[in-house]
């Protein structure tokens, strides 16, 4: 008799799929030309240096090729994408002032509630502009800056000029160049020397407008001895045509500082998520990444730590969950560029219903990174035989004074593990549920509580029979 397969349900997207009317204040015409870039600059009242920067980035974009590897991006047609959509709202510091329909969306996503209960500050972006930003008073008094990028460009021009797209230069790849040309919105965080921000800050990015792109820029500077936990969430309702997300995150973690950057990415399944994230880590500083990737039709996302300071450390903990029609090509990159640096990478993926998960990574330990250590572990769980799971890690070791190890596993839920748990009195269903939750646990325990709950809901088991 054929066994029924256990069904692992995908996330209930009812909340995320709420569509508001595409009711914008301004939507730029589709396409990507010099005129359009100038128009974006006009609309955003850019200073001259930023206008020039955008135009230069457009030139780089036109010169660079699409990646010759990874998922097929042929369906992306920039002539069909509007790169700037200004919502009918100015930047507010009170939720009451946010227009009703936008506020309702964020209410349903639980953002204001989270602010009240567990966050030190919140930013909310709707389409191309930030509509809400606020932070607790005591942090303001300590000199912490948490604002939208446009305000930062105007009010902290020197800080922004010194750091903006220096960590992620526009020639890194084609979509970074695109981002440089059309970026809009995002968050700017500055944590002064020795200030510890104990409660997380969170930015939430929502793309409502169909056939459009979101290109927010996040720039975080954590000064010497300071610490911060930053949470990023993103979602969009599903449309029939392709939407594009090409954000950019630049993180500067100065000497002895600590930054934890958590992301729950839950874009709709018509989204191409071609995001870039990079951190430069100073002496004895630590950069932790926690990443949950659940949405998007195609995702190409490889956060990167550059360990430039002696004794710097980084840790990456990530999970991808690919369901029907999804191709999640995610991973991590680390460059060891100084003595006594260390990195720990722990990546997991679950593929089901014809979804494809790829773990793609680079570990490079340079000649000058004597006495460095790196440990990589990746595990992939296949829940049926129509899905796909690939592991493509590159390990580039250029000195002998290292300890490097990499291990990876792929397969289904072990019959032995089920048997063992059943011998301890668990039913087959409970045993399997425990194993799948256990598989995701190392990641979910790193997430903020409300996201961990969201993830557990996501891996909602509907147990009917053997997972095998």
């Amino acid at each position, binding site marked *: 008799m054929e066994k029924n397969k256990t069904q692992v349900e995908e996330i209930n997207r009812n909340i995320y799929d709420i569509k508001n009317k595409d009711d914008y204040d301004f939507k730029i015409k589709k396409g990507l030309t010099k005129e359009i870039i100038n128009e974006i600059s006009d609309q955003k009242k850019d200073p001259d240096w930023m206008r020039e920067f955008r135009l230069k980035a457009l030139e780089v974009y036109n010169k660079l090729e699409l*990646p*010759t*590897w*990874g998922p097929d991006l042929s369906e992306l047609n920039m002539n069909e994408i509007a790169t700037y959509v200004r919502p009918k709202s100015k930047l507010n510091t009170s939720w009451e002032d946010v227009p009703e329909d936008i506020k309702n969306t964020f209410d349903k996503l639980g953002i204001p509630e989270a602010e009240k209960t567990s966050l030190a500050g919140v930013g909310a972006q709707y389409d191309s502009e930030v509509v809400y930003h606020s932070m607790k008073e005591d942090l303001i008094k300590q000199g912490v800056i948490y604002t939208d990028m446009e305000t930062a460009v105007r009010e902290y021009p020197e800080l922004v000029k010194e750091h903006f797209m220096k960590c992620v230069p526009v020639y890194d790849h084609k979509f970074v160049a695109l981002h440089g040309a059309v970026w809009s919105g995002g968050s700017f965080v500055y944590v002064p020397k020795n200030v510890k921000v104990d409660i997380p800050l969170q930015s939430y990015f929502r793309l409502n407008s169909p056939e459009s792109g979101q290109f927010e820029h996040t720039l975080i500077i954590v000064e010497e001895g300071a610490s911060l936990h930053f949470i990023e969430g993103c979602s969009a309702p599903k449309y029939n045509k392709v939407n594009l997300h090409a954000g950019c995150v630049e993180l500067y973690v100065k000497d002895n500082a600590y930054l934890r950057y958590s992301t729950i990415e839950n874009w709709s399944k018509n989204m191409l998520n071609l995001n870039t994230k990079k951190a430069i880590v100073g002496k004895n500083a630590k950069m932790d990444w926690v990443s949950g990737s659940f949405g998007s039709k195609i995702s190409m996302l490889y956060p990167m730590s550059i360990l430039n300071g002696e004794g710097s450390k980084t840790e990456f903990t990530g999970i991808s969950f690919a369901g029907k029609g999804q191709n999640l090509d995610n991973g991590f990159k680390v460059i060891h560029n100084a003595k006594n640096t260390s990195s720990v990478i722990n990546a997991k993926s679950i593929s089901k219903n014809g979804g494809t998960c790829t773990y*793609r990574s*680079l570990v490079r330990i340079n*000649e000058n990174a*004597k006495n460095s250590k790196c440990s990589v572990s990746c595990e*992939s769980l*296949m*829940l*049926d*035989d129509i*899905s*796909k*799971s*690939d*592991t*493509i*890690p*590159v*390990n*580039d*070791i*250029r*000195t*002998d*004074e*290292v*300890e*490097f*190890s*990499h*291990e*990876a*596993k*792929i*397969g*289904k839920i072990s019959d032995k593990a089920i048997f063992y748990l059943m011998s301890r009195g668990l039913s087959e269903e409970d045993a399997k549920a425990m194993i799948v939750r256990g598989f995701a646990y190392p990641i979910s325990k790193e997430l903020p509580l409300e996201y961990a709950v969201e993830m557990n809901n996501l891996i909602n088991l509907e147990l009917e029979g053997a997972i*095998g």
Partner: protein
Amino acid sequence: MPDLKLNETPVRTARNFNCNNIVLKDLKIPENYKAFNNIEIDIDNSKIDLEEEISSSKLTYGLGDLLEEQAMKSPNKKIKLNIKGKSNKESIISFNFNEENKNLIDNIEIIAEENSKANIFIKYSFSNSTACKNANCENIMCEKGKNSEKLNNSYENYYHNGIIRLFAKANSSIKLTVVNLLNEVSQNFLSIENNLQENANLDFCIVDFGGKNSITNYYTNLEGEASKNNLNAIYLGKDEQVFDLNYIGALRGKKSVMNIEVQGALNGKSKKNFKGTLDFKRGAKKAKGDENEFCMLLSDTAKSLALPMLLCEEEDVEGNHSTAAGKLGGKELFYIMSRGFNKKEAMKLIVRAKFNKILDTISKEDLKNEILKEIDNRLN
């Protein structure tokens, strides 16, 4: 000669990771070469045919069109073996480069008939030259009595481009060992392609020491149910040698098994790119694959690049891989040196010990001893 891109991986990754292929600049590919005559062949239980037409079908992966065409269309040595019956005898094909035989373009096809068994060694080495520049050294390749100037002059730049193809029919059991003991200024290119039918068992061993560039593409198609391939490989680099090793196993048959075990050591400014792929195809239920690579870095200028890939489109499989790289263990070195060995000797002992697990699979004692001596010579 324009830059030559060779040995493409089955799946590409980012270009700036530098591992999708290897690019050789200014490679001189010989165009006019005579027949290669310095060969010893001692084959048991098989029909050997040097004239019979051998397969001309394109390789699934291979090193690239240019080298593949050369080896297919204009080899200077073709060998076809038809293995019938069972034999435990060690068979050997030995190609020995010398001043008269500097270029070898070989195309070898082995057909292992159903229920056959064989143990075959293919060796590429050189004579009349030396791997060192000192006439008094103990290098087994040195011709004693020759003065050092003469020996240096005979330090030839040999060229080898070969294809080895094995078709293992049902229930056949083949041991195949390929040993590359060329010098460090030669060019060594080798494409290996195996097709395994039901219950076929292949134990393949590669010893890869020679070549300024040693580029190997190894592909096994585990087509048959319960077919099995163990691939054991060792590499040893010195000076500015570059190894590009692209080992691929496609598991198609139910309960098929592929194990890849690679041990290597890099000295001087040598560099290694190891690309190992276990590709579980849909339908390969209960297939298992394991892949381990360990690289010992013997100098702080050696470089190790590893890309251990797992590709999977079947749920009911088990796939594992691990790679590691690092300096020789400080404790091991200290212990051996405390017993009166100097650092170089201690290093040799450790390298030999790490390689032993794989070398022990080589049943031909004289060849195994030759390899052990080569390890010592090359680590001098």
